[in-house]
């Protein structure tokens, strides 16, 4: 199924270990992937997947910062601490937000809850 193919690719790209995550997801997909889809996902080069994952996660961070001026200021004041908070957030909260304000609200809720 194309939708499952796409869902697996998105989940892998948002992971800090994209190649390992992709392999896990393909193995767990069972009949939701046909043989052709399984072969295409399994043939993806690890280097390209790694760079694509870095780009995807960077764009998620940029979207979050675009949604809240105060969060942007906090990131500029202490990039290392903010990046670590973002890593925990990205690992815990699924990427379901199209717009910056939504992502920023979800991050604030996560940090507040944590």
């Amino acid at each position, binding site marked *: 199924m194309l939708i499952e193919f796409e869902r697996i690719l998105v989940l892998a*790209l948002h992971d800090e270990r994209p190649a390992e995550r992709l392999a896990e997801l393909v193995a767990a997909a069972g009949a939701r992937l046909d043989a052709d*889809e399984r072969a295409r996902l399994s043939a993806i080069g690890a280097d390209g997947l790694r760079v694509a994952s870095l780009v*995807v996660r960077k764009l998620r961070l940029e979207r979050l910062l675009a949604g809240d001026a105060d969060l942007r200021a906090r990131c500029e004041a202490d990039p290392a601490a903010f990046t670590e908070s973002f890593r925990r957030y990205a690992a815990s909260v699924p990427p379901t937000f199209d717009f910056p304000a939504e992502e920023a609200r979800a991050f604030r809720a996560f940090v507040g809850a944590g």
Partner: protein
Amino acid sequence: MTRPLLGLTLLPHREHLAAMARVIEDDAEFFEITPETLWDEHLEPSAAHATILDIVERSGRPVVGHGINLSPGTPGEDARADRHLSAITREHAAFGFRWYSEHLGFTTAGGLVAALPLPLPPTEETLRTVADRVASLARIVPDVALENQAALVALGDPSKEPAFLNDVCAAARCGLLLDLHNAYTNCRNFGLQLDDWLAALDLSRVMEIHVSGGSESNPAWLASRRVFRLDSHDGDVPAEVWRALDSVLPRCANLRGVVLERNEATIDDSNIAAFESEVRHLRAALC
């Protein structure tokens, strides 16, 4: 054949618009806008919407839409697509798009958001999915084009991408937005020759061309130290892309316009002169 028009992207970024003011006023023959950048999270017009609409109305120049988030390669999810198409309908009423383009890819799947358009596997299900979504879009803006993607991963034989683009445009009965930097990027990343890539493409489908620059990935990102080309729109247009433009222009019989793209955070007073030089280069190529 009439001469293709020179287009610039209108981005809702105050410093970018200020730095670009002269070329927007003097050089742009049409504008390209990305509706999603003018919406809030409810898909309603944001504060930037009025600014961009004012520039367009004062200029009296044509506008085309260039969407980034309809996700034409996502099967199902009709409620999301319908909300998006309703917003495009509203923007078409406001801007009067001459044509509308979308990235040939997917940005969402199963409620998950990818953050950028991702490539599609070249399969029959993909062709059907894209054709259905383009048909819905074409009921709003009749002339639709799909843009070839820059990719860091291949979901099939990369040398067959032009054939896949030909198949998609035929199945969806739409035009092609030929992004030359994306094609250059894929050729660099997958070891292909740009001339061969372009020779395999049905250039009669090309409705619009994008020209832009990019950057290289940091070798330290990978244990292999391999470097990938990135479609980051933050650098000068490579000489190979200019050469490709000169090569394809006489062969694109249905071409309407060429847009010089540049990211909003990368133009300011320090480098606007270099960008203006690229605008002059593009104008010379089109005349």
